[in-house]
């Protein structure tokens, strides 16, 4: 079973719809055992870092997430919460990725909203059959700095991590569930891991 983390910063329904369109069944849950026993865990998110972290800590989910052994996919705020620290609300996050989340300087319109090109660094299982330069859909005001974990980058105001990976943790700043057929390919690649 594929588990989609249920918490207070969700676009969980959109992710569930996308997973089901690909022919997989999934459930939206924050039950500790259901998450631990899932074949894959998706950690979605639209919302603010501090309220999301408070919720996760309140339910003991912070401990559960970092200890997961199966493939985990953080999306948007999910990616940011997997980092060590976010400028948004001066928030200590989960610390899977040893990198920080910064606010975009106001040199251009914020949020960064719309379709932008991702540059894929090397051939990576998450981007199998995805060409090196594809447009995907972003909506965010904070970004993950480039790091050793970066597997795809994007340029808007600065160059930032569009996707990251460390061990069994995968993450995208963009929304694969809203990125038309390219997004479906990426989500399907994750589900096939």
């Amino acid at each position, binding site marked *: 079973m594929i588990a989609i983390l249920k918490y207070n910063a969700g676009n969980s329904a959109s992710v569930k719809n996308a997973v089901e*369109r690909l022919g997989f069944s999934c459930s939206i849950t924050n039950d500790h055992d259901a998450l631990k026993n899932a074949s894959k865990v998706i950690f979605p998110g639209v919302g603010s870092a501090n309220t999301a972290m408070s919720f996760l800590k309140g339910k003991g989910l912070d401990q559960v997430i970092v200890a997961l052994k199966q493939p985990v996919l953080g999306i948007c705020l999910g990616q940011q919460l997997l980092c060590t620290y976010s400028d948004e609300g001066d928030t200590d996050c989960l610390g899977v990725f040893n990198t920080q989340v910064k606010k975009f300087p*106001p040199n251009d319109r914020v*949020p960064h*909203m719309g*379709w932008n090109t991702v540059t894929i660094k090397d051939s990576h299982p998450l981007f199998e059959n995805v060409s090196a330069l594809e447009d995907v859909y972003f909506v965010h005001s904070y970004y993950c700095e480039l790091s050793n974990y970066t597997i795809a980058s994007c340029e808007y105001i600065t160059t930032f991590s569009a996707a990251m990976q460390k061990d069994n943790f995968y993450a995208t700043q963009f929304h694969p569930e*809203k990125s038309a057929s390219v997004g479906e390919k990426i989500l399907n690649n994750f589900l096939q891991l």
Partner: protein
Amino acid sequence: MLKKRIIPCLDIKDGRTVKGIKFLDIQDAGDPVVLAKRYVQEGADELVFLDITATQEKRKTWVALVARIAKEINIPFTVGGGINSVEDAKRLIDAGADKISINSAAIKNPSLISELAIELGSQCVVVAIDIKMENEEWFVFISGGQIATGIKALEWAKQAAFLGAGELLITSMNNDGTKNGFALPILDAISKSVPIPVIASGGAGTQEHFKDLFAQTQVSAALAASVFHFSEISIPVLKNYLKTQHIPIR
């Protein structure tokens, strides 16, 4: 590079798309989901569904329709029409809409913009503004353009952004339906005055109108209804044309 967005708008009445639709190969273009999927295939960057159902009674099916759209559509979509409270908006977001748009309700109660931004996040909140030029000055109109507010367009646009709107949808009533092009000067003025994306609407008639909009203003997206519904402009042809004109397009 961030791309300029092309957004078809579907007017929905009693759960069905309105305006005559000329897609010969579509069995039921009156079904919003069928038409929406067609637009997605053609390369639409986002969709807007506007509920123009007259009464709340008849609007009961709207949330169920939004949920059905969310199940089928793999690009972002905005829903608008009849949203007067955070509760109205939450029902639609929970049904799977990515953004909601508010118009008259925001003028009547500007703090609704802030409440929605706090509750749902600014990225979900589109403030739609209908504007009309009178005596060389652009003003805001509400209730489908029937009621003059006396509020200057530029001032309201700035205030809406300040209150927490994530995006503005500006429709020029002078241009809407004319097919003579977008209201470039005011769209340029508004887009330069706010730090958030602006969607331009009203006046699209030819491919060149879209090029002029993106080349001459800082707007982020163009919305149109009839030119797409009547197949006067095909989205793939439009997008290819804009690429040849060096407009950043997906």
